[in-house]
C-alpha cells in the first residue's frame, strides 16, 4: 500500500486521516459504492417523502392495477410500470412497489445500522477492556467471546424471534441480531489494544499519572479506530443479509410492514410470472450488500493494512 500512497501528491506532514481520505477519493470502486450507499440511505431516510411524491402509501391497495382473473398479475408490461406506479405494483394487492421498496429500505437499513451500532459498541468496549486490563478480566471476556461464537447464531436468532411474541418486531430483531455479532469485533480490538498498550506514548501517559479511563479514551481508542471503522463497514452487509434472511423465513417484520427480505420472500413465487417484482427488491439487496463490501474492502486496505482480522 505504501507504494500506491506515494503516488498521490500530498504535502508532507499530512495526518493519517487526510492520507486515508485522499486514497479513498482516488479509487473508482469507492466512489461508486459510496454513491450507491448514499442513494439507498437517502431513500431510507426520505421514504415517507418519496412515497408521497409517488402518490402511494406502501400499504395502499390498487385493484385497478392487477388482473384478478390471472391470479392478480399486474396489468401492463414489466410488472405494471406506468406513470402512476413508477416501479410497477405488487401482484394480487396492487400495492405500489416504489413506495414499498423505499419503505423497505428504511426498515432493512435501520435494523442493519442499529444492530451494527450495538455490535460495534459492545465489541469495542469488550475488546478494549479485555486487552487493556488483561488477567482475569481478559480470561472471562475471552471465554464469553468463545461461548458466543459457538452459538449457532442464525438458528438461535430464529428461535428467539419465534418465542417472543407481542413485542416491537423491529426493535427485537435489532437486539437479537446485535447479540451475536460482537465477539468478532471484540477480538480485533483486543488484539489491537494489546499491541498498543505498551507503546511508549501510552507508558508515558501512565507515568504522568493518567487514570485508566483517560488512557483508554485518549490513547487507546483513537488507535483502534481505524480497524474498527473498516470492520464496521464490512459487517454491515452481513447485518443486512441477516435481516433479509430472518424476514425471508417469516420470523421478521409483520405484515403489512415491508422490508427487502419480506418482499423477496413474497416475490419468489412470482419469479417467472412477474419477474420485475422479484428482481426489484433482490437487486436493491444485492447492490447495497455489494456496495458496503467494496467500501469495507477499501477502508480495510487503507486503515488497517496489516489486516488485524480474527
Amino acid at each position, binding site marked *: 500500500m505504501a507504494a500506491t500512497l506515494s503516488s498521490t501528491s500530498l504535502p508532507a506532514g499530512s495526518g493519517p486521516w487526510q492520507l486515508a481520505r485522499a486514497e479513498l477519493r482516488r479509487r473508482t470502486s469507492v466512489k461508486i459504492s459510496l454513491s450507491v450507499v448514499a442513494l439507498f440511505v437517502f431513500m431510507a431516510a426520505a421514504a415517507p417523502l418519496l412515497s408521497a411524491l409517488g402518490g402511494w402509501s406502501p400499504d395502499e391497495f390498487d385493484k385497478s392495477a392487477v388482473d*384478478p*382473473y390471472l*391470479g*392478480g398479475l399486474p396489468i401492463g408490461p414489466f410488472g405494471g410500470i406506468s406513470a402512476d406506479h413508477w416501479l410497477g405494483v405488487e401482484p394480487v*394487492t396492487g400495492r405500489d412497489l416504489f413506495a414499498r421498496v423505499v419503505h423497505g429500505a428504511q426498515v432493512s437499513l435501520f435494523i442493519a445500522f442499529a444492530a451494527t451500532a450495538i455490535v460495534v459498541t459492545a465489541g469495542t468496549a469488550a475488546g478494549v477492556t479485555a486487552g487493556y486490563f488483561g488477567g482475569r478480566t481478559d480470561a472471562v471476556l475471552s471465554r464469553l467471546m468463545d461461548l458466543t461464537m459457538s452459538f449457532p447464531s442464525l438458528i438461535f436468532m430464529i428461535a428467539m424471534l419465534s418465542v417472543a411474541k407481542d413485542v416491537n418486531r423491529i426493535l427485537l430483531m435489532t437486539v437479537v441480531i446485535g447479540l451475536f455479532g460482537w465477539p468478532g469485533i471484540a477480538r480485533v480490538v483486543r488484539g489491537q489494544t494489546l499491541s498498543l498498550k505498551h507503546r511508549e506514548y501510552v507508558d508515558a501517559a501512565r507515568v504522568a499519572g493518567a487514570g485508566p479511563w483517560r488512557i483508554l479514551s485518549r490513547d487507546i481508542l483513537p488507535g483502534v479506530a481505524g480497524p474498527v471503522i473498516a470492520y464496521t463497514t464490512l459487517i454491515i452487509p452481513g447485518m443486512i443479509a441477516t435481516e433479509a434472511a430472518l424476514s425471508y423465513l417469516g420470523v421478521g417484520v*409483520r405484515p403489512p410492514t415491508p422490508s427487502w427480505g419480506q418482499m423477496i420472500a413474497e416475490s419468489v413465487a*412470482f419469479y*417467472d*410470472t412477474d419477474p420485475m417484482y422479484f428482481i426489484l427488491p433482490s437487486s436493491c439487496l444485492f447492490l447495497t450488500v455489494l456496495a458496503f463490501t467494496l467500501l469495507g474492502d477499501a477502508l480495510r486496505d487503507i486503515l488497517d493494512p496489516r489486516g488485524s482480522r480474527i
Partner: protein
Amino acid sequence: MNTRTLTTVAAALAATLALGASGCSGGRDGEDSARDGRGSAENPATANNGAVVGGAPEKGGTLTVLSNTDFTHLDPARNWVMGDMDFGTRLLYRTLVTYKAAPGAEGGELVPDLAEDLGAPSNGAKTWTFRLKKGLKYEDGTAITAQDIKYNVERSFSPDLPGGPDYAARYLAGAEGYQGPAHGKHLDSVKTPDDRTIVFELRKPFAEFAYATVLPTFAPVPKAQDKGPQYDNRPFSSGPYKIESYARDKRLVLVRNTHWDPATDQVRKAHPDRIVVTMGLKGNQIDDRLIASSGADASAVSWGKMRPESTPKVLTKADVRARLLAESSNCTEMVQMHTGRTPFDDVRVRQAVQYALDREAIVTASGGPALNDAATALMPGSLFDGKQPDTLKIPLTGDAAKAKELLKQAGKPDGFATSITVSNGDKGVGEAIQQALGRAGIKVTIETVDPSAFYDTIGDTENRTDLVYTGWCPDYPSGSTFLPFVFDGRYIKEKGNSGNHSLFRDKPTMQRMDEIAAMTDAQQANQAWQQLDGEILAKAPTAPAVIERMPLLLGANIAGAYGHTSFGGQIDYATVGLKDPAKSAG
C-alpha cells in the same frame, strides 16, 4: 374449508334433497348452472367439473402424489381431515359403508363397503346391525372380523389417540367417560354376536347412522397389530394397498395388497401398482412440475391446492387448463368475530366489519374469480337452490363510510386495534382484510399459523385472537349440517372448539334451530334454514367472505380423475390411475 367438517351426520332428508347439484360446481347440470349464472361456460377453471378427466385408466404403473405436507393422521381412529380420509379409506382401509366413486352429485351416494348393505335399523333406529361380506382379508391374509371394527371404535376413545372423529362418542349408548380398551374395558353398546355381525346400540334414534359409518372410525384394526400412537406410522391394511415404507414428512410408498379381493369391493378400482407420496415439496414447485408434466411428473397429481400465483400459468394455456380439477369445496370462508369480547360484543361493531370488508380483494388474494366466488350469505349456494341470496346488499368492495358511521354509533369513532389468525397459506387474504378494515379505522395485526396447528390454535377460546378467518362446509345439502355447527352456542368448547368460532350464543337462534330440527317436512325445514341464515347474518357474528374451489393439477398421463364432492373436492383415490402405465417411472 374447515377440514374437520365431514360427513356430518344429520337429521333427515338426504334423499329428498337429491344430494348436491351444488350450484357453483354444477358443470354438467345445465339447469343449475343456468340458474346461478356462474356455470362452467363462463369460468375457464371449472370445465372439468362433474366429469372424469383423462378417460379410463389402464392397470399398472406408479402413481406419484406430490405434496407440500405430511398427512395429519393415517391411523383410522385419528383420521379426521377431508383429504386424509379420502386417502385412507380409499386406499388403505375399508369402512362399513362408503361413498360411491363417481364425479359430481353422485359422489354423495352411499354404497356398502365391508358391510353387505347400508345397515339394518331396528328398535326405532336406535339399534343398527351390519353384516360383513364373506372373504374379507387383511394384508397378511387373515380374516377381517366384526370384533376388529369394534376394537377400532373402542380405541378411538383412547386419550393417547386424539384427533379422530367423535361421532362414536356422541351417539353410542353408555359411551360417557369411556377411556378406550387399554385396561380391558369394553363398550357394551357395540356387540359382535359372531365374526361377521356388528350391532350398535345408540342413545337416541338416528336415522342417518349409515353416514357415520363412512368415517375411518368404522374401519377394522386387528388388536395384535395395534401399537398405540405408533400405529399412525404403519396402519395395517384392509384395502387394496399396503404400506411398503413411510418416512414421516418425507415419503410414503404403497404397494398392492395381494390379499384384497376386488370381488368384495364395488368402489375401489386400484389401477396403479404403486402409489408414491412425496412430501415436503414447495407448493410452487409442485405446480411447475405438473404444468411441465415431463418424465415421471406426467404420472403425478398434486395433493394440496394449486397456489394462487400459478393461476396465470394454468388458465392461459388450454392444454394445462384441461388437466385442472376445480370442484367446489362448497365451504363458506368467513371472518369470524369473538362475540364474547369487547368490542365485538356490540352488534354495530360487527356490522362495521361486515361493511368494511372488501370481498373483491379477498377473492383476488385467494386466486381470483375463476377459483372463488364472493359470498353473500352464510350457507353456500348449494343450500339455497343454487345461488346465495344477498340480504345485506353490501357492495362487494365494501362501504367504508357506512362502517365508520356504525363504529361512531358504537362509541368507537376512532376505531380500535385488534388481531386476526389466518392459516399460513392465507396470509394474502389476511392482508386484504387488514387493508379493508384499516379503511374504517380498525387496525388489524395478522397472526399466521401453520395449517397443521391452525384449528387447535383458533379452538382455544381463551387465548385466541378476536378475529379468525375460517369456514365451514355442509356435509350434504341440508342446512342442518351447517347453521347448527357454526352458530349453536351449546356446542362451544373452551379448548378444541370447532365450527362456532364467533362463540355466538344467541337464545332466539338456538331456539329456532331446535324448532327446525324437529320439522318433519324436508321442504319446509329447508326454507326455514334459509330464512334463519338471513336472520343470523343480520346479527353479524361473522362476515362471509368467499366460497373456494379445490384446484388440483394432474399430470398428462393421469386418467380416471375427478374431484370427489364428498371429500371436499380432493381427487377420488379409488379410481385414479394412468393412461399408459409404461410411461411412469417404476
